[in-house]
C-alpha cells in the first residue's frame, strides 16, 4: 500500500477521444478488422513507467501501438523492412493509468487488423 503514492486514476478510464483520429491517420480511413494481430501485455503492470509489450502480425508491413488512456495516445509505429525475420517487436512503454493498449497492423494485403489488451496500473502494496 502506497503512502503518498502519486494520485492516479483507478476509476474506469475514459479512452482519449483522439484515439480514433490516430487510427484513421494510420489506416487512411480504411476498415479495420478485429483480431489478426497479437498483443502481449501484462494483466497488471509491475511499474506503469515501464510496461513490457509485444506485438506481432504475420506478414504485416507496419504495426502501430496506441495507449488509449494516456494524455497523448501514440506510443510507437514499427515498420518492418525486407530483412525483418518476422513482423514482431517488443518494447517497454509508459502507461499513465489503467487502460487499453491498442495494436493496429497493416497486413500484407493492405488491410488492417486491430486488437487491444487491458493493462491495470495499481498503487500496489499488501500481499499474502
Amino acid at each position, binding site marked *: *500500500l*502506497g*503512502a*503518498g*503514492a502519486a*494520485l*492516479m*486514476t*483507478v*476509476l*474506469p478510464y475514459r479512452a482519449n477521444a483522439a484515439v480514433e483520429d490516430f487510427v484513421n491517420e494510420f489506416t487512411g480511413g480504411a476498415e479495420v478488422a478485429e483480431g489478426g494481430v497479437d498483443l*502481449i501485455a*501484462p*494483466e*497488471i*503492470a*509491475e*511499474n506503469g513507467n515501464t510496461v*513490457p509489450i509485444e506485438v506481432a502480425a504475420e506478414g504485416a508491413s507496419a504495426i502501430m501501438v496506441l495507449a488509449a488512456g494516456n494524455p497523448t495516445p501514440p506510443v510507437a509505429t514499427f515498420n518492418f523492412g525486407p530483412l525483418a525475420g518476422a513482423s514482431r517487436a*517488443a518494447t517497454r512503454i509508459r502507461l499513465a493509468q*489503467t487502460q487499453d493498449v491498442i495494436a493496429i497492423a497493416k497486413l500484407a494485403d493492405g488491410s488492417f487488423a486491430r486488437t487491444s489488451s487491458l493493462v*491495470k496500473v*495499481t*498503487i*500496489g*502494496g*499488501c*500481499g*499474502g
Partner: protein
Amino acid sequence: GNWSRLAAQQALTQDQLLEFDTFGNVSLIHVTDIHAQLKPIYFREPSVNIGVGPNRGEVPHVTGADFRRLYGIDDGSPSHYALTSGDFAALAQAYGRVGGMDRVATVVNAIRADRPDALLLDGGDTWHGSYTCHHTQGQDMVNVMNALKPDAMTFHWEFTLGQDRVRELVEGLPFDALGQNIFDAMWDEPAERFKPYEFYERGGVKIAVIGQAFPYLPIANPGWMFPDYTFGIRDRHMQEMVDEVRAQGAELVVCLSHNGFDVDKKMAGQVSGIDVILTGHTHDALPEPVLVGDTILIASGSNGKFVSRVDLDVRDGQMMGFRHKLIPIFSDVIAPDPEMTRLIDEQRAPYIDQLTEVIGETEGTLYRRGNFNGTWDDLICDALMSERDAQIALSPGVRWGPSLIPGDKITREDIWNVTSMSYGEAYRNEMTGEFLKVVLEDVADNIFNPDPYYQQGGDMVRTGGLGYRIDVRAEQGSRISDMVLLETGEPIDPAATYVVAGWASVNEGTEGPMIWDVVENHIRQQGTIRTDVNTDVEVEGA
C-alpha cells in the same frame, strides 16, 4: 458446544495423523508460506473469504460451518479446529497449538520412512515473518530448512530481504531455487540464478518440477529492493517449459507455485500438461485436491500448520491416480524431532530475552486472517492512531501472522510475528478524502476483480478511524461508498485533508518509527487488550 472436546483430543494420536496407505510409486511432500514460524503457534483460519466471478462460492472461498458441511467435518472435531474459524478460542484451549518446524520434521521423516525418495517441495514465503528471521536476514530459516532437506523451493517475501541478500542465500542453498517467471529486468531473459525447472528421478519416474514465483512481487512489495528482477504470470512461458520438459521425457510435471489459489486455478485451465500444482501464497488449507481438467491443485495452508502428502501412481509417462492427505500439525500430538528442536533453539538463543519479554496481555482472540479485518489489525490501527496522532490508520491486508487466544500474554515475539518486515516504517501523512477512496478502490480491485489474473492475493487494507461500505461485485471505482470519519461520524469529504498513519509502504524513502515499536508502546500503555467486534465495514454482494 455439546461435544466432548477432551475425548476428541485424547482420541487424537500421532499415528492417526500420519496414517496413510502408501500408494503408487511417487510421493510429494508440500510445505508453503511458513513465514518463519519455527515454534508452535495458534492460527485462526478466516471467517470471511469471498470469492468473485467464476470463484464465487467455490473453495477456498467457503468458510466456517459451510466449509465443515462441504467436507463432512464434525463440529468440534480436530478438523473443525484446524480448518475453520468457528468457536476458535475454545477449541484452541482444547487442542492446543499447531505447527513448529520440529513437528514438521517428524512428519517429513515419517513420510520418508514410508517412501525414502519422497520429494519435499517448499512453496516460498519461508525467509520472512519473525523477529529472528528479520535479525538474521533469513539465516535462521535457511539453517532450519537446510536440515529438513527440501529438494526445491520458490519465492515471494524472500525478495524483500533485498536482491543482494537473496542472491547470497540462493548461492549457498543445497537444493534448487526455481522460478520460470523470474526474469532479468534489463534484457527480459530468464534470470541466471533461478532455474525454471529441475528433473528428479524418483521411484523410477522422471519428474519435472517447474517453479513459479509470486507474479506480482514488485507491485505487492517494494520493487526498489530488487530492481534487477521482473516476474509476471507468464503462462505462455509456462506452457513452453511444460512442453520442453515433456519433450525431455518428463513423466510427471509438478508446478511448485506461489501464484495464489485462484490464479493457479485459472493457469491450470490455460496451460496444458501440468499434473500437479502445489499452490501457495493465499494461505488456503484444503483437505481435498481441486481438479481442473487433468490437473490437481493442492493447498497446504501456512505458518507451518500443515504438511501435504500426495502419493501418485505414474506409469508409462502418465499419472494414473493419486492419494492425498493434508496433515494438520497438532503440536501437542506430534512429537518434536529432538535434533530439529535443538537447531531451532540454537537460532533463537541469541535473542531469547528480547523474544520472551512480556509486553501486555489480551482479553480476546488476536487474529489477522479474513478479507476485511482481524483483531490484530484493529489493535495495530489503534496503535497507529494513538502513537502517531492520526485520524485514520491503514494497515496492509497481508495474510501472515499467527493468532493469540484469550488470556495469552503478548510477548515481543508475538508482535514481531504480525509486523516483521524489511520496510516496517510507520508513516504519518496527509491524504485527501479523494485519495483515500482511490486507495480503497485500488486495493479492493486487487482482491475482488472477477478475473483472478488481476488479483494479487492479499486481503483488503485494514482501516482504523474510517468506516465504509463495499459492494464486492461492483465495477472497479464504484465498490466503495459511505466512507465515514469515525471520530466525528461525518462523511469523508473528497476535498478535505485527513491525517493518516500507516505502515508497509512500498515507496522508497518512507520515514517513521518501526511498526513493531509503535505497537509495543501502545500495548504497554494499554496493559490488557480488549477486542471488540469490528462493525466499521459493511459488506455487500458476498
